């Protein structure tokens, strides 16, 4: 038994080193271009849909409860994408787009949360619509830059 242990170790250790090295060299655990693109597209979708919802709120065309629940859903979606872009390292050359995406997601989430808290405020809804429209364009540009 005493001799088996070092033998097993000498066999397993190189394999473990190869696996770890392969994982490190291939960027395992990092966001690749497709992953960053997917998050940016999700942000573009969430901000655009948020713009449509807040546009309806600005014109008082939808019940407050509907605006409240839709802004909550979209805020969470934007926040999740922002967090994914911030918390997971990206492959080289993607950091700028990921960082911009993180800013867009966090700002979109803040705007949607403000409307969620005051869904009947049409002035606020008008401002949120305008700013979400700009953020949607920014997300599209960031995705196109990849």
């Amino acid at each position: 038994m005493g001799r088996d242990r070092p033998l097993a170790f000498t066999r397993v250790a190189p394999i473990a080193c190869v696996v770890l090295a392969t994982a490190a060299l291939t960027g395992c655990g990092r966001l690749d271009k497709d992953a960053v693109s997917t998050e940016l597209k999700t942000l573009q979708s969430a901000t655009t849909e948020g713009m449509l919802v807040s546009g309806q709120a600005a014109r008082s065309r939808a019940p407050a409860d509907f605006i409240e629940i839709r802004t909550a859903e979209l805020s969470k979606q934007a926040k999740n994408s922002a967090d994914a872009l911030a918390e997971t390292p990206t492959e080289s050359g993607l950091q700028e787009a990921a960082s911009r995406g993180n800013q867009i997601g966090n700002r979109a989430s803040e705007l949607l949360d403000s409307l969620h808290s005051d869904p009947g405020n049409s002035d606020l809804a008008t401002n949120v619509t305008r700013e979400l429209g700009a953020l949607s364009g920014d997300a599209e540009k960031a995705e196109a830059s990849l």
Partner: protein
Amino acid sequence: MKKVLQIALGVVAALGGFVDIGELVFNTQAGAEFGYQLLWTVPVGVIGIATYAEMCGRVATITKRPVFDVVRQRLGFGPGLVTLIASEAINILTVTAEVGGIALVMQFYFADIPFRVLLLIAAVVIMFVVWVLPFEGIERIFGYGGLLLIVYIAAAVHLHPDWGDVASGFVPHWQTGEDTLIYWYFAVGVIAAALVPYEVYFYSSGAVEEGWDESQGDLAVNKANALFGFALGGVFSVALIIVAAVLFHPVGVSPDFLGTTALGAQITFGQTGLLLAALGMMFAIGGAAVEGSFAGAYAFAQFLGWEWGKSRKAKHSKKTPGFTSAWMLLFVLAFIIDLTGANPVLITEYAVVMAVVALPLTYLPILLIARDERYMGERVNGRLANTLGIFYLGLLTVVSVVALPLLFATNHGSG
């Protein structure tokens, strides 16, 4: 005259009952992601479900036996048990998605009530309605209520789509490029959402419940219900795709919420549009929840040889304790799964794609019986029914092989 009325009522019930949360989710996503390009998948799904629903109704009318009875006899105990387990797993997922869907729709008007309370209300109200009403009442209330989704047909017309582009969407084409896998994921999803097994289990058991009889002309009722009911149901699906293609596709919205489907009607017709869409969704999704739970209870009862049925009022349930317990258990399980916080829209996508895997197991025995003269006599499948039946069985076998890889490769359509 009575027969004409019966056909009209059946068509309307089938039409209203065709659309469920799977249709609402997949059709909206398909329109938003690919514009009109996936419209061709709707008739593919509708012709398939109409073909097999007609066969099921005919088999039930002639043999007085519903689908699961036929499955067990034709496949034997072992394969029958595999089919039972697979279909029950899908039924639980389906009912979970539908009960969660009702709660999601209720949130449009009761955003301040906690979601879990809305889930409880949804489950209790549906179980109460099912307990109190007879089979015909359940079928018609949910079917007719689902007709409020006609708001999407009005919206599709009101939005003035380019009808030339709409027409070209009905021509099947082979998608290439970076979105190929996502395109085929949604193609499979739209077709599968139309062909989910619970619809035929419910349809054929309903035929036995209502005592369809060849001598009473019920084969004509069956044919009319299957052809016109599902075809008109397909019009709802087309409308959902058009609305999403006009409103969401050009601006890059990728719907992940049931609320996005509602937003289509709300943007088009304001508060009235939202109210009609929400009520229509509640009835359509509620009807599908009932159909899913009943399909599960029918399958259990028919496989295990229990007494089953819901054709008389609640007192009849005392004579079918196993059947009644089974549909209640399905609702309770669905409620518990929903309570864990699982996303109903995601569950819907999994339920529809998982259902595809079980489709050949469901439809093969129906086809075998419907073309077997020993069971069907002169009412055996004609050339058209056989051709379509074999074609769809082949198609479903291919689809059942590719469905799960597509689900995982595309991250359920998210890319």
